[in-house]
């Protein structure tokens, strides 16, 4: 079968769903962060595929910015997790309920 835009988008959708499933299902903060990275990567794949199939480089520039912002987000998020772990001795979402009503 000829590989077209549809196949790339399907892979991107499946990967996004996997990431979302990880965010909902896993209870470890670090694994939740990794699942977020999967979702961002799925969006990147869709953007690059669109860029290739619509003869437009703007999508790839956007992916470049997304990668940069994702790196900044990961560094800040992991620093937050480390600060949280120092206070609570846990990186498990069910132990972090002080904002729960």
């Amino acid at each position, binding site marked *: *079968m*000829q*590989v*077209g*835009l*549809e196949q*790339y*988008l*399907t*892979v991107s*959708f499946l*990967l*996004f*769903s*996997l*990431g*979302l*499933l*990880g965010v*909902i*299902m896993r*209870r*470890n903060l*670090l*694994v939740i962060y*990794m699942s977020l*990275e*999967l979702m961002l*990567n799925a969006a*990147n*794949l869709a953007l*690059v*595929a669109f*860029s*290739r*199939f*619509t*003869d*437009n*480089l703007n999508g*790839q*520039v956007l*992916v*470049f*910015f997304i*990668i*940069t*912002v994702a*790196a*900044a987000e*990961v*560094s*800040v998020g*992991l*620093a*937050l997790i*480390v*600060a949280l772990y120092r206070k609570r001795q846990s*990186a*498990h979402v069910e132990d972090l309920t002080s904002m729960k009503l």
Partner: protein
Amino acid sequence: MPQLPDILFYVFAALTLLCGVLVIANPFSRNPVTSAMFLVLTIISMAGLFVLLHAFFLAAVQILVYAGAVIVLFLFVIMLLDLKEEERRKIKFFGIVAGLISVGTILAIFLKSLRATNLNAQPSPTIEGDTASLGKLLFTNYVLPFEIVSVLLLVAMIGVILLSKKDLK
């Protein structure tokens, strides 16, 4: 007879999805280090997909930034936190059911909308995502976002330094 890029697409797509599954639900190990390692494999096979889409610069950046920097940061934090106790916890049944239902619904919407649209796109023969063309675009049309992103990185750096101080106010 399928062409070589098509075969490679299926190989890389299968690798990406398989390693993605192993990141979130590994039946053999609940250790976050294993998840991080499979995330590296996902990123690398996705870089393969980028090469197939002629996005050579992004494939290199993907490997450099994700596999080289982000995953190393993840591993560093995992080893710093010593999460051995976490492995014994069970995944809640309710969480699995809720996750599968919501994700299945979203995936159904995605795939149905994909079927409904008529994507008759052909790969463009001229477009090449190499460093020269992407850099030219980045420094002409996108020069303001580029500068703003550099400020964002600076802000993130200051934030990380502030957050990782010992006596956080």
